């Protein structure tokens, strides 16, 4: 509360920014200090903005049309195989699901494609009402374990709780995400017009991000023998087989199994799709998936009924913009037209009132 006037002077020197040092000097005459830095002072006038509106309109509308057409040309076929409906072939499997059943339940869904799929076809599985973006779920993983760190392999992070250990054994891969990995097997058969079932070859590789597959995910220890590398760990509770038996191909086994990697990239929304397989175009003569009847054979391992989820299979071709999504095209066309329209309106306003305003300003 007290400070006497004798030190007010000192106080002044403390709080004055720069005051103390420059007090007896003429301030520097630099452009910066005098706030006279050369400056560009853009003035947005109708003259500059109006053309911009038209230009935006003229650019956006063609892009939008292009996007819309592209999206429309993408062939997409979707089939729901949850089996909630009595009539669905998978009804039984969905009802009689139990984690402990040793015999897998299979069901076959027939469908037909009205139009042939000409280029490479990408096969997705889709889940609905599955909250892969739940906070408890998203954080339930150990990236250093997945990166092949041996200490983390044996001591999973506590973020993985309650999926870190099973009966004192560390779980590999730990965490809720890994534990709930999608494990339905989907096979696709083409029904020849003459009735024979031809299995369509599905490619397992190239479905995960390259960097994930080659850098982010690594098997522990550099040991080619995965069984020994994962010695001392146990499989996730809900898995039927351990991680080193995910695939027979050594390049696609263990943590670097692409199905696993795809699953580990948590989806943004509760309804999502994930890339399952790629059907490669054989040659230019025949379409990848010709018109006709098909059967989808499902090994039904993945329960979704408890949380009212849905399971789908999506067959889709892909363009430069990705999968089928008319939204972007429509949005571009709309924004383009709005800009164009606004440009016209502004032009009218400018013509009608602008000149008057200008003249009115001057004598003021």
């Amino acid at each position: 509360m007290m400070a006497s006037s004798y030190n007010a002077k000192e106080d002044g020197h403390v709080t004055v920014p720069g005051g103390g040092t420059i007090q007896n000097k003429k301030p520097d005459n630099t452009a910066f200090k005098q706030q006279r830095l050369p400056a560009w002072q853009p003035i947005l006038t109708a003259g500059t903005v109006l053309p911009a509106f038209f230009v935006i309109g003229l650019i956006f509308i063609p892009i939008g049309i292009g996007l819309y057409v592209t999206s429309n040309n993408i062939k997409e076929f979707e089939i729901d195989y949850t089996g909630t409906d009595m009539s669905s072939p998978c009804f039984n499997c969905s009802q009689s699901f139990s984690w402990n059943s040793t015999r897998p339940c299979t069901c076959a869904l027939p469908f037909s494609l009205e139009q042939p799929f000409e280029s490479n076809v990408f096969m997705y599985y889709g889940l609905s009402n599955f909250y892969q973006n739940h906070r408890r779920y998203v954080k339930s993983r150990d990236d250093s374990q997945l990166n092949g760190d041996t200490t983390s392999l044996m001591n999973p992070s506590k973020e993985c709780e309650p999926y870190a250990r099973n009966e004192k054994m560390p779980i590999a891969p730990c965490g809720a995400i890994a534990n709930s990995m999608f494990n339905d097997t989907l096979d696709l058969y083409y029904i020849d017009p003459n009735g024979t079932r031809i299995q369509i070859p599905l490619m397992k590789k190239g479905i995960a991000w390259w960097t994930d597959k080659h850098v982010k995910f690594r098997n522990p220890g550099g040991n080619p023998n995965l069984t020994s590398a994962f010695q001392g760990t146990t499989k996730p509770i809900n898995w039927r087989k351990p991680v080193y038996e995910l695939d027979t191909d050594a390049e696609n086994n263990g943590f670097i199994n692409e199905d696993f990697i795809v699953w580990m990239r948590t989806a943004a929304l509760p309804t999502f799709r994930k890339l399952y397989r790629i059907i490669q175009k054989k040659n230019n003569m025949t379409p990848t998936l010709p018109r006709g009847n098909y059967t989808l054979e499902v090994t039904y391992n993945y329960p979704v009924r408890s949380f009212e989820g849905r399971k789908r299979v999506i067959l889709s071709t892909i363009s430069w913009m990705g999968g089928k999504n008319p939204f972007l095209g429509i949005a571009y066309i709309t924004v383009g037209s709005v800009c164009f329209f606004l440009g016209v309106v502004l032009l009218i306003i400018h013509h009608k009132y602008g000149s008057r305003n200008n003249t009115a300003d001057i004598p003021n």
Partner: protein
Amino acid sequence: MLRRRLNRLFGRDERKVDSRTIYVGHRPCPATEALIPPKFCDNRIVSSKYTVWNFLPKNLFEQFRRIANFYFLIIFLVQVIVDTPTSPVTSGLPLFFVITVTAIKQGYEDWLRHKADNEVNKYLVTVLEDGRRACKESEKIKVGDVVEVVEDETFPCDLILLQSSREDETCFVTTASLDGESNHKTHYTVPDTERNLESLSATIECEQPQPDLYKFVGRMHIYRNNQEPAVRSLGPENLLLKGATLKNTQKIYGVAVYSGMETKMALNYQGKSQKRSAVEKSINAFLLVYLCILVSKALVCTTLKYVWQNRPGQDEPWYNQKTQKEKDANLYLKMFTDFLSFMVLFNFIIPVSMYVTVEMQKFLGSFFISWDKDFFDPEIQEGALVNTSDLNEELGQVEYVFTDKTGTLTQNNMEFIECCIDGFQYKYADSGTELDGFCVTDGPVNILQQKAGREKEELFLRALCLCHTVQVKEATGQGDGVADGVEDQVDGVMGLDGETVGPADLGGFIASSPDEVALVKGAMKYGFKFLGMESKNMRVMNRNNDVETYELLHVLNFDPVRRRMSVIVRTKSGDTMLFCKGADSSIFPRVRQEEVDRIRMHVERNATEGYRTLCVAYKLLSREEYDQADTGLREAKLALQDREEKLMAVYNQVETGMSLIGATAVEDRLQEEAAETMEALQGAGMKVWVLTGDKMETAKSTCYACRLFQRSTELLELTVRTLVDLGRKREERLHELLLDYHKRAVQDAPPIKAGVTRSWSSANQDYGFIIDGATLSLVLNSSPESNSSCYKSLFLQICQNCTTVLCCRMAPLQKAQIVKMVKNCKGSPITLSIGDGANDVSMILEAHVGIGIKGREGRQAVRNSDYAIPKLKHLKKLLLGHGHLYYVRIAHLVQYFFYKNLCFILPQFLYQFFCGYSQQPLYDAAYLTMYNICFTSMPILANSLLEQHICMEVLMDNAALYRDVAKNAMLGWGPFLYWTLLGVYQGLLFFFGVRFLFSNPALQDNGQVFGNWSYGTIVFTVLVFTVTLKLAMDTRHWTWINHFVIWGSLAFYMFFSFFWGGIIWPFLRQQRLYFVFANMLSSVSAWLIIILLILLSLLPEILLLVLRKPRGPHSRQKKPVVQSGVGETQSPRSSARPLLMKTFSDESNTIL
């Protein structure tokens, strides 16, 4: 502060013991049998706030008392305790940073205070103890000690002067550090004390400590060997104040009467209260709104979370089991922690960084004021001084300007212009050359044209030479040097000024008022030269170069109530004469009427021309008269009680029946560009109040000269003069006048549209209001049963409708009172006080913004001000230029910060609806932390420092532009709503735009899908670009720094994202963003949506810019327009024009 002071004053009266007894040198006195050593406090001064031990807790406590800091502390603690979606580091680090920096700054300041305290407390002083001279630390001085002080030392405590090394029993003192008066004051020893201090046995009886520097009443009893104790009166002239410095005197001895915190200096210290700007209040209001938004968001999410979880299978699906701990938790506790988690997740809406940025902006921004070379005054070699950086923007919001007259509007550089002797006018020719444009029409008038009788002339000039308290500066080289050096140090003005006390003059004069010096020098021009005092003898050299000697018998000091001063001298021939000079109103009633009539005309004409006039009278005292006066004065001086009143009575008795010799006119020139500055301020919609201690006529003419009153201004006068009315009570008359003026100015005036806009079209009658101190106190403190509050509100309403209010004859305290009254009236307008002297300090401290002028009346005003400028003319640029820009900048900064955090957090909030209300953050932790610190902070900081939406020259030329931002226009609820809506619109757009894109997450041409981190990254990228580009669109002034920072920030964001996602970071638990950004950029769809969303979110802004166009360029295009029609706004007339010579009589404008 005022109240406390008053309380203290009143409290003194209630105290039982109203005097203290001090035993000089602690020696028991014969009269008192038992010596009970009285207890007084020690001589320690404590101004520091902290000690080493209590610094940490006390400082932390003080800091967390700030609501914002406390809020962030709570958020941090929640993050530490509760399992929250973001790590405690995200909010802990910035908070820690802010707290540490503030603590270091405050600690450093306190350390300096400690140092200063120690310097004073440990200063070694010489104390006479039992006949020995002993060195003691200053803090160990006890009341009653006899202290020795040598030249140029400051007094360690309040002392009664006992002995001086000067022969005439006086010493000189400067009180520059106390009240800013840098002149030398004479103090006198107690008469008839013994030369031998060791054997002195005396007691001093004096009043209890009180803060008034100029009041002291005491009595000294001196005991001599078995004689009746001699009683001597003690007054302020015997008291040496702590903090004052001894000058021109080798050594003095004094006895300590008040020590330590009881000294007048310590009691006088006014804690500089923290001033808060209106912008800060707006920020707090907005903060509250955002806090409400935050809490409601968290509440909504928590509620929905539990609603959602109640649906079967949602709370704990098989794929996402809870841990055992989570399962066991209490439901309500869980709900509470969920609520807190949401709060933490959304808390970025109120970012710590805003406070940091605002502080930085203010701190760095204030440099531009001190750097401005336009504020540099070559005369005093100084520029502007910024004492606080908190009020920069307040400079752009000023509605009322309270200005001092003397030294502020005028230069306080007195010049003797003319005199009038016995009704004849005398004008000294040379004065004309110094005032360009003002030359006496009748050519150079010879020195003393033989108009009045020679006798009268010489009497008049002698009177000028004798009736004053001026001292001649000691001519010895050493003395001069010291004095000069000190003055330079004290206020840095005197040495360069060369006009009043410059060594160039033959004799430098030192006086408490520049008028006196001007008069003495005026007499010198006419051949009478005051040579100085020689032990009670005044020596005057007359025109024949003969030295006349006069014995100075009494000085009847000047005081503002009497408004005159007198001296009684005895001439060689033995005649006793009284010379009196004073204001006309106080002299005229005391002289013969026919003399008055001859001179009155001159005085009034001089007053209307803006000169300070004084009348000079004399009286020949007969022996009886003198003896009577002498005894009266001596008696009154000894009185312990009511000394002032008694003295006054004697003065009044003596100063009667004088004869008037003449009158003087002294000019106080206007400051450079005073009129232009005032005109600009009024053009900017500010109301200017002149508060002065000067008399009405002079002040009024200054107002005319400054064009505060125009010729068309109708003056409403409420002064003692107008209140005198045929025996009726003053209250009645006051009431009547107030009602009349109110009717005139308030009721009949056309309703003023939109508050501040005083249109200067001639259709509106301008009113000026004049009030004087006595009437003001009548208005403010009229008898309690009468309707004083009614008077007050009437008065305020009248004043608010007047363009200029002139308050004359104000005491310093009244100035503050007025400022306070206006400050607290409806709408709480922003007030600014500007002044240069110690008497302005109270109003400078009281107003929202206090400006000190580095004038010649010491440093007190500058030290207590928020900003100090060398000249009044700089006020224009300070307010219209800097103030306007700072306001716009900070307003934009604040709005922008709220906006950018709203559209930052809104998508995060919306995401909760899609992630099961699980507090999953949309953005990665790095982005959450860096958003406000790195990606978007620098552009807005640069913008808020460099932006000139209208360039400085245009702002200065068009004062009316200031009205555009008046009344906190850019931080009102309207603009706030606009920014908020913009933020909401953009936030919605960002989130749902990406949401629809992600209805098919296969966005790459190889069919691979994107996850939630890609989602967040796309939203974040759009966000950073939009927010930055929005700022780019708001920037009207693109310097290379703006370019660098804006494009640099975006580039840095890109670079950082690549870098952050390009490496597996060993210290991170999760590699969420690994190559997310790069993958995003490889997707054409992501590019397209980013471009689309940025454009779409900026579209309304662009549209508004174009539609607002008719108004937008109006301000900028004005420049050429104004230049073509300069005529009315800028008058080309030179500023050095003297006070205007009006052809009209201002009396005719006054309504009586």
